[in-house]
Structures are given as structure tokens and as C-alpha cells.
């Protein structure tokens, strides 16, 4: 069955920030120069061609956008100056929006105002919850766990994590269905999914594929450090909250404080570094910044900043300031997670390793099938 062309796809992708893909004449220089594309995947050209022609279904099934880490070499060498790297970026946004069955993601991507409104709305709800439900305000000393009892916060944490995980995983399942489920010719045994689990874990924690981008691993290292800080903080506030949110002030060498400081410093340093990069536009990769790119960075920075301020006020023995900044902290952190995790840029943290995992699963299934048919042939002989 021939696939039907969607004539509006290229316009749609442009609203997601695609480069000048109309001008591309499919010479393939981008693919030739790309250090990551190989004989099984001919991006960026393939992705650009799908976008240009209007092969919507194909593009949605494609995993290729996730295999690119945006080094920008393709855009530097494009003879048409069509900026293929930015189109790859737009394709990732488009896919994130396509996976999301609620349609929220698309709305947020296509309108910066909608994204701001969503963040403000969630922030206000958090603020109102604290306004009406906060515990007794002790003013002669800092008692954060009286103002905001850790078990209630932890409960909120878990509810939020459950909801966000539901959205994120259901979206990821759609990605899996399009990539593997729609491939009717292929049977993927359960063992393939289990055996490739390590691919998921390795790529999630190391982003090692990125190292293939260029000789210079600075960007990979910076990103790796940022992720380490982020994951540390996520662990502290989600899993170890009872241990982390204490009224007792531990000595400075205590792991609770050391881990917190490490995560904060990394988050502050690199979000500022990345923001400066996007602002200066010195490098090709920072030439274009979508509203969604800024939103994630700014929220992450503000979360870390308000988080450390809670700590400073707490140690300085300023009860009211601590309580207020704590509320503000959550009014930023929660919307960041709610908006960005399943619907926004945060999702790439999960989608990228998941995509590589799916590719590995598919390859393994194919290899298994081949081995099986070979065996059959041998047996028949």
C-alpha cells in the first residue's frame, strides 16, 4: 500500500523550528559528513527527505532523529545552507509532540505563550496548596518539617512521579509501537527486550553514543556532568527525601550536604554556561534556540537557585525566609517537571536511550530470526 503524502508536513515542521528544508536538493553531503549515520541509517538526508516530501507516517515511525546529537557538521557543510541539523532538532520536537497522545506537547511546542501559561498555572496551584494546607509556622527557629511535613511532601512527590511516569511511559510505548509494532514482518521475542536492557541503562547514564560525534568531547562531558547533577538531585528529592529534608543541620562534610552541594553547583554552573552559549550564538548549534530550549534551561536554573537559597536561609536561621523560598522553590520545580518531563524537552532524557534500546532490540530480533531460518534450512537439508 502506497503511503499517502501529507502536503502540509513541511510547513508543520517549520513551526517546530525546522531549517530551510525546501531548498534541499538531496545531495547527501549531510549524511556523508555525519559521523554517526551508518549503512543502516542515512540521516540527516533521509529525515529531511521525509519532511520535504510529506512522508508523515514514515517520519513518525522513524527513530533516526533520536540518533543525532547535534554536532552541527551537516549544517556547516550543507551546500544549500539548508541547516539540516536544525531540521533534525525540529524532528525531535515533532516526534515528542507526536508520541504525546494528549496533544498537550504539541500545544506547548507551538506556542511559547502556552508553555509559559502552563508553567504559571501549575506554579499557582502549588502556591495555593501551600497557602491553604501548610503546617504551623514556627518563627523562633527554622522548622521546615513543621511548615511542610516531609511525609506530605513525599506523598506529593510520589503522586506526581506516578502521573508523570504514566504520561511519559505511555508516550514512549507509542514510540515503540510505531517503530516495532507497526513492522508487521518482524516478530520480536520477549527475550530480545530483556537481553538489551543494558543498552538502555548504559545510554541513559553515559550518553556514550554522543562521543562518536567528534574528537572534542567537551559538549558530551558538560552534558554528562549536568545530567549527573540532575540525577543526584532527583534521587535526593524523590527517593531520599526523608534523609534530605531535615531540620537538623549536619556538619559540612556530611554526605547529605556534600551531595546537595555537588548537584547544585553542577546545575547552576552548566545551566548558566548553556544559557550564555545560546545567548552568544557563537557556535552553529546555538544559532537557533526554540522557546522550549530556553524554558527548560531557565526553569532548571531557577530550581537550583531557589533550592540552594532554602539551604542558605535554613542554615542562617531565617525561618520565614526559608518557608517562603521553599514554597517558591516548589512553585518552580514542580511545573518544570510537570511540563517538561512528559511534554517537553526533558523527555529526551528518556526518549534518546529508549530509541537506541529499541534499535538494539530490533537488530537483535532480526539476528535471531536470521539464525532461526538458517537453522531451519540446515535441518531441512
Amino acid at each position, binding site marked *: 500500500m502506497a503511503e499517502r503524502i501529507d502536503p*502540509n508536513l513541511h510547513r508543520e515542521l517549520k513551526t517546530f523550528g525546522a531549517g530551510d528544508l525546501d531548498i534541499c536538493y*538531496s545531495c547527501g553531503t549531510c549524511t556523508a559528513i555525519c559521523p554517526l549515520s551508518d549503512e543502516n541509517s542515512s540521516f540527516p538526508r533521509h529525515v529531511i527527505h521525509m519532511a520535504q516530501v*510529506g512522508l508523515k507516517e514514515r517520519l513518525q515511525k522513524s527513530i533516526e532523529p533520536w540518533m543525532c546529537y547535534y554536532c552541527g557538521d551537516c549544517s556547516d557543510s550543507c551546500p544549500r545552507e539548508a541547516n539540516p541539523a536544525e531540521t533534525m532538532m525540529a524532528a525531535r520536537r515533532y516526534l515528542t509532540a507526536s508520541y504525546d497522545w494528549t496533544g498537550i506537547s504539541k500545544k506547548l511546542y507551538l506556542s511559547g505563550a502556552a508553555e509559559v501559561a502552563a508553567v504559571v498555572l501549575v506554579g499557582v496551584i502549588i502556591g495555593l496548596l501551600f497557602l491553604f494546607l501548610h503546617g504551623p509556622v514556627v518563627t523562633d527557629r527554622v522548622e521546615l518539617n513543621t511548615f511542610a511535613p516531609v511525609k506530605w511532601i513525599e506523598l506529593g512527590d510520589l503522586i506526581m512521579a506516578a502521573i508523570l511516569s504514566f504520561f511519559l511511559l505511555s508516550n514512549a510505548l507509542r514510540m515503540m509501537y510505531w517503530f516495532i509494532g507497526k513492522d508487521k514482518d518482524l516478530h520480536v521475542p520477549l527475550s530480545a527486550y530483556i537481553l538489551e536492557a543494558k543498552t538502555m541503562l548504559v545510554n541513559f547514564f553515559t550518553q556514550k553514543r554522543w562521543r562518536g560525534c567528534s574528537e572534542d568531547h567537551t559538549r558530551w562531558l558538560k552534558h554528562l556532568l549536568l545530567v549527573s547533577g540532575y540525577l543526584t538531585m532527583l534521587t535526593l528529592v524523590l527517593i531520599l527525601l526523608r534523609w534530605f529534608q531535615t531540620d537538623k543541620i549536619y556538619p559540612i562534610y556530611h554526605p547529605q550536604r556534600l551531595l546537595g552541594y555537588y548537584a547544585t553547583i553542577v546545575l547552576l554552573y552548566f545551566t548558566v554556561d548553556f544559557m550564555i552559549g545560546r545567548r552568544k550564538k557563537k557556535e552553529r548549534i546555538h544559532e537557533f534556540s526554540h522557546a522550549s530550549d530556553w524554558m527548560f534551561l531557565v526553569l532548571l536554573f531557577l530550581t537550583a537557585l531557589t533550592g540552594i537559597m532554602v539551604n542558605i536561609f535554613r542554615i542562617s536561621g531565617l525561618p520565614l525566609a526559608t518557608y517562603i523560598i521553599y514554597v517558591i522553590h516548589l512553585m518552580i520545580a514542580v511545573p518544570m517537571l510537570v511540563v517538561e518531563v512528559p511534554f517537553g524537552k526533558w523527555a529526551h532524557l528518556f526518549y534518546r536511550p529508549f530509541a537506541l534500546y529499541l534499535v538494539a532490540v530490533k537488530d537483535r530480533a532480526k539476528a535471531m530470526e536470521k539464525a532461526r531460518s538458517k537453522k531451519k534450512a540446515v535441518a531441512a537439508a
Partner: protein
Amino acid sequence: MTERRIGVFICHCGGNISDYVDVERVRQAVEKEPDVIVSRTVMFACSDASQQEMIDAIKDEKLNGLVVASCSPKLHLYTFRAAAERAGMNQYQYIQVNLREQDSWAHRDDMEKATQKGIRLVRAGIAKARASEALSTFRVETKPSVLVIGAGIAGLRASLALSDMGLSVFLIERESEVGGWTRKWGETFLRDKKGYEYVEKLEKDIKGRENITLFTNAELKEQAGAVGNFDIKVQVKGGDAISLNVGAIVVATGFDSYKPSEGEFGFGSPGVITLPDFKQIVDSSPEGKIEVNGRRVKDIAYIYCVGSRQGDEVENPNTYCSRYCCSATVHTAGLVQRKDERINQFHLFRDMRTYGKAELIYEQAAKHGSVFLRFQDAPEVRSEGEKIVVTVKDELSGGDPFEVAVDLVVLVTGMVPRENSSLVGNLKIPLGKDGFFNEIHPKLRPVETVMNGIFIVGVSQGPKNIAESVASALAGVAKSAALLMKGYVELEPFVAVVNNDKCTWCGACMEACPYSAIRKTVAGSKEVAEVVPALCKGGGACLPECPEDAIDLRGYTDEQIRSMITAMAKEVA
């Protein structure tokens, strides 16, 4: 008969000949041939020094026959004729023997036999020279007027340029108005100037010229005579035939647009139209939208190469490329985009040949959202409700089939030869395999035909765009003027001659002549055949037909040919 004194020069061609043919042995074998006074070998016969050596020999030895055994006459016939002429010898008593293409290059594997063949060839050349006569070109007075057939852009422009040179022009047009295809167009590539404005300007200019006579609704009825002096009859619709006398004819009859057969790419069903029809719709559409048959167009698919570059799938395929269509289509796409930028345009093409400066309009079309899909196998067209669905196997996606649903399919139709068989019959100029008129040489003599004084310009000769047609028209003007401005033409003397004593006028020769060069006349008391030298091409078709053996061909007389055969058949010692 005067004593024959023949000089023979055998060329090494720097080894091209002498590496495979023993030229010295050839020389020795022919030096004793009757009437051979001089026989020499030379390294390069065509060099200035060797030519001077020949000239000196002709003068010193009072030669009246010259044989140069070297390369193909295509290369140096005129070189050595000129040398003979400079030495005061009759140039038509020079004979060239092709010892290179016909001997040394063809028989590199066997020097002995190649040398023997060389000896035979040179002997034949000597025999021909011995029987050669002193001939001279003959002059034909020319009329300072030109018939231009077809008043499209090429014919109009040619007429004006001929008029500029002071020649009288008779311009005939079959239709009721001038301008041909160009008159139908609005904006044309590359500069977006309007086609009908070009025509209006040329038409106005022409009407102001006293030495141009325009006949519309007129067709060529009869053509007789020859270069410099053609007798023409023109039939004007509903009027008497008009007789004209012209020195040259410029054929600018243009083309027909390929008409797809019923069902070819869905042709015949609503929403499937040809590029020329669509172009006229676009030209007359208001800003903001394009409508076809009262329906607004939102998506268009262009299918390229319809009726051009056909393969074996059709009978008598048009194998040529029509040249104008890729450029015209991307240009039209640009006009469409300017009228309504929301229209999606899909170009299904085989090869994109927007050559030369038209590459820029391809670039513009690509920039403004036109999508280009290359195919190998022809796309398929079917209707689906209100829409037309085109299936194309996209080459860049490994030939995977995709469907595009559109409101309009535009068949990019090529150019085909004009249907005008009576004109072809009248002018007697040959058609190529493709049905367009055939030129003598595609590069060096692109507007000349085998009929002296008849020139083919514009698309009548082969597909061209407007600019190319006009350039071709002006080439035809230059060739006509070169012929007519001198007042006479000089023609080669290789024509048939009738021996009036032998001729009994049976008419067989007249029947055989493809150029109508033979007519009946009266000589003394009897009817005989007469050859009109200006018309005769020296083809020789009449010779074998004559039961009385009364016709001979100058430069290739029976005597010459017989003596050549005899010389060739003689054993080589």
C-alpha cells in the same frame, strides 16, 4: 586530347599511414603508371612546405592532374584543391585518395596487404585523374527576396532582420493572426516578459516595413525553381493563388504540442490538463487563487516528460527531449506560487533539465515550497472522489511508492513536429527520424538543408525555447543574406549532363530525380531531357535509369569510374 601530366604525392601522415603502409613501395609501384611525371612521398602533405612543393611541381612540370594519397577528403579536399588552384591548375583535376581511414587505420594488423591495397587505391586515383576534365563552378543569379513560412516568434523576427538587410520579405502564415504559440503566453521565462507583448511589438514593427508583405490565412501551394530563383505559389484562403519569385526560403513552421492519448496519465478526465492549457489558465487567473473548471486548486502534481523521451512502450516513440518543458514548468510553478502561495506543488520528474540560466528559476521554485520527486517508472493516475491520486515511485526512497492526492494534474507535454505534410511534399527537404526537418550538420550547418537556399529555423528543426528559436531564426537570416546579398551563387560543377544526340526523351530520368532537376525541352527538332544545374545535386539517380545511356555525371563520368575499376583490379606485382 592534350597530353596528361600527373603528379602523385603519397603522405606518411607522420606515421599514421606509413606505420602500416609501406609508402615508398606504393610510390615505386605507381611511378611507372602512364602519364605519371612526378611521384613523391611526403611527411605531412597538408603542411605549408609540402603544399609549396606540390605547387612548385605543378608549375615546373606543367602538371594537369594531381593525386594526393593522404587522409579523408572530408579533411583536406579543399586544402589541396586550393593548392592546385594557386599553382594555376584546374582544381577539379585534383583527386584525393584516402589512404588513412580506408587503408592504414583499417588494416593495422597486416602491413603487406595494406600496402597492396594502397597501391590499388592510388592507381585508381591516378586513373581517375587521367580521365578528369577541367571543370568550373557555375553562377546563378539570385533574387533579393525571401519567403518566410510561418509567422511565429521565429518567422516574425527573421522577417524583420531580413528586411533590415534590404531584402524583400514575403511572410506567410497559415493561421488568421501572427504570433504562433508565443502569442498565447503571459509571463515567459526567464525575465517574466509577456509572450503576447513580444508578438505585438514585432507585429507592429512588421506592419511599418515597406519591404515586408504579410499574408495570413495563407499556405504554400507550389514550389519550383532552385536556389536564387524559386517560383512560389501561395494560396490565401478564399482568394486566388499568388505567384512569387524569391531567392531563398526560410522555414519557420514551429511545432504542435504533444497531445496525450485518451487515458494517458488520466488525460481526458476532469482535472488532468496539459501544461500549455494550464499556463494559459494561470496567466488569466486573478491574484489570490487559481481555478480550473470552476474549482479552486489547492494541490497540483506536474508529471514531466509526457510525450518526450519515450521508450519502447509506445509505437514510434518520441525519443528526444523537448528542452523547453522543465524550465517552463518550474517557471509556471513560480507564477502559481505568486498567485496563491498556499497551493502545494509536486513535481514528478525524470531528470531536471533547467539548463543554463533557467537553473535559477528551478532554485526559486524549490525555495518556495515546490516538492520535487524523481521517478524512473511512469507515475500512475486515478481519481478518488473529488481528488485525483497520483502514485509515484520515489527514486530517493529506493523506489517506494507514494500517493499524492491533488486537485489538478498537469501533464508536461513536449513538442512534436507540426502536422503539415503538404509543405513537406512541396519543399522536398528531408525529415529526421524524429519528424522534425533535418539540417545538414547539427553543429556546423544547423539551419541549412540539402536543398540549396532553403533554411530551417526555430522549432521546425527541433525543440527549442523562444530565445533559442530566435537565435536560430537569425542564423537563417545570416545564411539567406550570405546567399542573396552577393547577387549570385557559385555552384559546384558536379551535375548530370545530357547527351542530346543519344537522348530520346522517355522521361525515366525525370521520374528518378528526387530534386525535380530534370525537365523536358526541345533541342533542334527533338524532345530531350534537360538538367537544371542549380537544382541538380549530382546524386546520379538518373544515370542507371537511362535506357540510352545518354546521361553522364561530371566529375564521376562512366569513363572515370570504369578506368578506376580497371586500375584497381590490376594485379599488384
